[in-house]
Structures are given as C-alpha cells and as structure tokens.
C-alpha cells in the first residue's frame, strides 16, 4: 500500500483543527483495537504462556498496532511521504542488524525456547556444563542458580544450541549403589536385607521395581548392585539417606562391607619358623645359664 493509493480514498483535510481531531480519533481507535486484541489474547493465552513472556508479547502487539496505524493511516492521510522513511529505515535496519546480530540471535533463540520449552523455571538442569536450578527464562537470557548458590546468566543462543540435561523433566529417576560384601558372607541374605530396607522406604517406588543382584566377584568383595527408582523430586534425598542405612543394617546382621586386603605367601615359610625356634632355644639356654650362675 503506498500513500497515493490510501489518500485517494480519503478526502484531504486542510483545516488544522480537523487534522488534529482526525489524528486523535485514529489514535483512539488504534488504542481501543489494540486493547481489545491484547485483552482477548491475554485471556486465551493465560494458561499457555508464562506471565512475563505473555506481557512482552502483548506489549509488542499493542504498540505494533499503534505504529502501523500511524505509518499506514495517519501519514498517508496528511500526504507525508514515507518512501524516504522506508529507505532510511532500510539503511538503519542493515546497520542495526549487523550491530545487534547477537542480540537478535538470542532473541530468536529465546522465542524458540519458549515454544519448545525444554526447561521450565524451577527445573534442575545441566546447560553447557552449568548445573543448577533455572531461576528465570528471559527473552534474551536464561538465569541459572548453581547448587552452590552462584548466579549464572546464559545467553539464550547458548541455551538453544547446546545440549540440555533436565533432571526433573521425567517423573521418576533411578540411582545406583554398589555394595561390596566379604566372600565369607551370604550374598542371598544381604540381598534379602537390602530388599527389606527398600520395602520400608516410601519413596523407593514399587513400579518401576528396584533391582538387586550380584554383579561381579571382585578382587576384594562380592559386589551387589542396588538400583532404586524414586520420584524425581525426592531422588537426591533418598540417595543420600539409603546407603548408610544399608551399611548399618548389613553390619547389624553380621554382614561386613569388604575392604581391600592382600594375602602374602612366603616362599621360605618353614625355614623362617625354624630360625625363630632356634633363636628361641638359644635365648632360653642363655636364660638358664644366667640363672644357674646366680
């Protein structure tokens, strides 16, 4: 649409007072339409988008309608030639485009992150080897609070292009222990005891069921693998708690956790013993001699 095509349908307004009134009316209508559309979108997208992103979208639409009405209706109405504006705008656009390449990249990545939603605020994640809680997802950056309380701002382009591990995206999560018991202990009994401990633990899930089995006959121990599923929200607390309970309960039942040990065989064991005996005999002879002398 160019100026002449719009202005040919609108009679020219020469009276300055009428011009002002017309501008006010057009702006008023644009504001009313903008408000109406934003209220409608707010209601329909309220449950689908988070508040902050929805506000950004609504503001963009609202001001976009006003700008379009100014450039598309008011300018042609007063025969203001916008072609020069478009050329200047194009040049400025190219300059700004180069200057704000990374910002635009982050912005577009942010939009895609909002649509794809691989992470949500509050999730525990590993993004670009940064582990922690997602504190905020903004339009051009994502904020992480690490487990030791550090604030990390990640550009959305990094978040979007790097691999993301979301530790709580699934409802349940598994953890594993290796329990090494002595060769002299009964592995079946140990498995039964460990199973009993898991049975008593509310958050050790019934389904997927836990697995406990002898995995390897190691150098120093019979290694029992214990795999337990827990709700993702309770996973870490349970992992921290159960291993020590297993260790204590096994020991209470006479099953010891094996430690590294080495049996040393002496090639000349018999000679060593003879020498020791001979040494003892000579010592005793000396003792008898001294007693007789007294």
């Amino acid at each position: 649409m160019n100026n002449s095509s719009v202005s040919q349908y609108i009679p020219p307004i020469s009276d300055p007072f009428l011009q002002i009134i017309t501008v006010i009316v057009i702006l008023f209508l644009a504001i009313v339409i903008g408000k109406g559309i934003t209220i409608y979108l707010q209601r329909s997208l309220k449950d689908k988008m988070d508040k902050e992103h929805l506000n950004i979208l609504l503001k963009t639409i609202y001001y976009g309608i006003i700008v379009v009405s100014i450039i598309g209706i008011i300018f042609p109405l007063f025969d203001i030639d916008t072609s020069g504006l478009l050329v200047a705008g194009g040049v400025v656009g190219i300059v700004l485009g180069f200057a704000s390449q990374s910002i635009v990249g982050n912005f577009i990545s942010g939009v895609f992150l909002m649509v794809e939603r691989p992470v949500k605020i509050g999730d525990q994640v590993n993004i670009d080897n940064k582990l922690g809680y997602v504190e905020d997802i903004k339009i051009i950056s994502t904020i992480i609070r690490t487990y030791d309380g550090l604030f990390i701002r990640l550009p959305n382009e990094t978040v979007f292009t790097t691999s993301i591990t979301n530790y709580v995206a699934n409802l349940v999560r598994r953890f594993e222990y290796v329990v090494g018991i002595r060769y002299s202990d009964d592995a079946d009994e140990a498995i039964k005891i460990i199973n009993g401990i898991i049975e008593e633990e509310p958050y050790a899930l019934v389904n997927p069921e836990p697995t406990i089995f002898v995995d390897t006959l190691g150098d120093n121990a019979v290694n029992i693998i214990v795999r337990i599923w827990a709700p993702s929200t309770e996973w870490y607390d349970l992992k921290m708690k159960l291993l020590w309970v297993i260790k204590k309960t096994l020991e209470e039942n006479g099953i010891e956790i094996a430690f590294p040990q080495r049996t040393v065989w002496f090639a000349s064991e018999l000679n060593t013993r003879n020498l020791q005996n001979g040494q003892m005999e000579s010592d005793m002879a000396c003792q008898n001699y001294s007693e007789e002398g007294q």
Partner: protein
Amino acid sequence: MFDTYNPPFTVEHGDNVIKVIKEEKDLIYKRFFRGTEEKELLLLNNDGDILINPIEPVNLPGKITSFMLVDFKRTVFIRPGDKKKIYLTFPVEIGVFVSDKGGKHEIIDIFTYSRVKYTLYGSHNKGLVCRYWQSEVFTDEPDTNILHEGYIELEIINDSGNLMEITQAVFNAYGMKIYYGDRRLGMKASMKIINKLLAETDFETFPTTSRFKRSMELYTSRKLMINATKGIMEFGL
C-alpha cells in the same frame, strides 16, 4: 478415635497416644507413636476444639501427588456392558484439625499407622506418581480396622464391547468423599471402563446418618483450586 475433642484431653490407642494439654490460654499438642514422642506443637492463644478424622491418604511423608493406585491382589474380569459392585481396601491417614473462632478447621498434624509406598502409573514423562496400596478384592463389605484400613465400594461399569481384565484402579484425592462411623470407614466410587486402555474413576456420596458421617477432607478444607475430581486411567487397567 475419630471425634471432636474439647481440650484438655488424651486419646489412647495401645501405645499410640494423642495428648492435648491446656496451659493458660495456650494448648500443647503431643503425639506419641509406639511410646516415642513424634510431634509436639504449641498452639498459641487457642481454645478451639480439636477434630481427629480420616483424610485423603496421599499426604505422607510429604505431598507429592494427589493420586492413589489400588493394586488388586486378584485380577477381576467383567463382561461387556455389565455392571458389578466390588469392595477394596485403602490405607487410612489421620488428620488432626484445630478449629478457629469462626469455626473454620485448619490441619495441624497428619499421621498414619499404615505402610506408605509410592509407585508410577503410566509412562515416565506423562504418567502419574501415585500412593500405592495393594488390596484384596471382596464381593461383600469387608471388616477393617478403621485406624489402619477403610473400604471402597467400587461399582465397575464396563461400557466397552469386550471382556475386561482389571488389575488396578487409580483414584484422585480431589474427589474423595470419606465417611466414618464407630466401626466403618468407607468411600463410594465408580469405575467406568471405556476401552482396554482407558477408564474413569469418580467418587459418590453416601447417605449420612448421625453414626456414619462425612469426614473433614483435607483438600476441601484447604480450598485448593480444583482442576478435576476424576481419576483418568489412560495407561491401562
């Protein structure tokens, strides 16, 4: 045990004791489990009554779900188009409420004498974490120790065109309506089977009498925003 008490009072069930002591205007609440003190609370400036009654069994040890899965010890088959009533048991969680001046009840303690376990129903990303309970399937109302177990009168309606095999039922705590008397503690529910992978459970009301009354449910008293009261079983029966 399930009643409204005016402090000071002591409720004993074996070596499990609830004791509320009055100290001037304050109340001291103590709960002992197998002789050991498990909880002590100080209720400041409080002269309200204490209500002890069963609540939805999905709150312990922490609130992580509003769903309960009852695993049937015996598989149940129902013919197409048929309707049949069975009875299951469910674990009892006991809520202790204190009433304020306006008569509004607020929860102060939750405990249970039943075993607490959780399970996953459905897929890892779209399923449900549920409180797990294994129950025998009865055709008549079972006798239960109401401090440990209640019963669910479950009407199964097979709306599908096939013989259906049922091994479990998922219930939503938002819809639970618990009723109790001196010896009975129960809920009335229905399970509508749509096909092999889809069923819907819901709760119904019992006719109440002075001896069989409606419990103060936790979800009702918290006035939580209710999204749905039905249990949708979309990952198999």
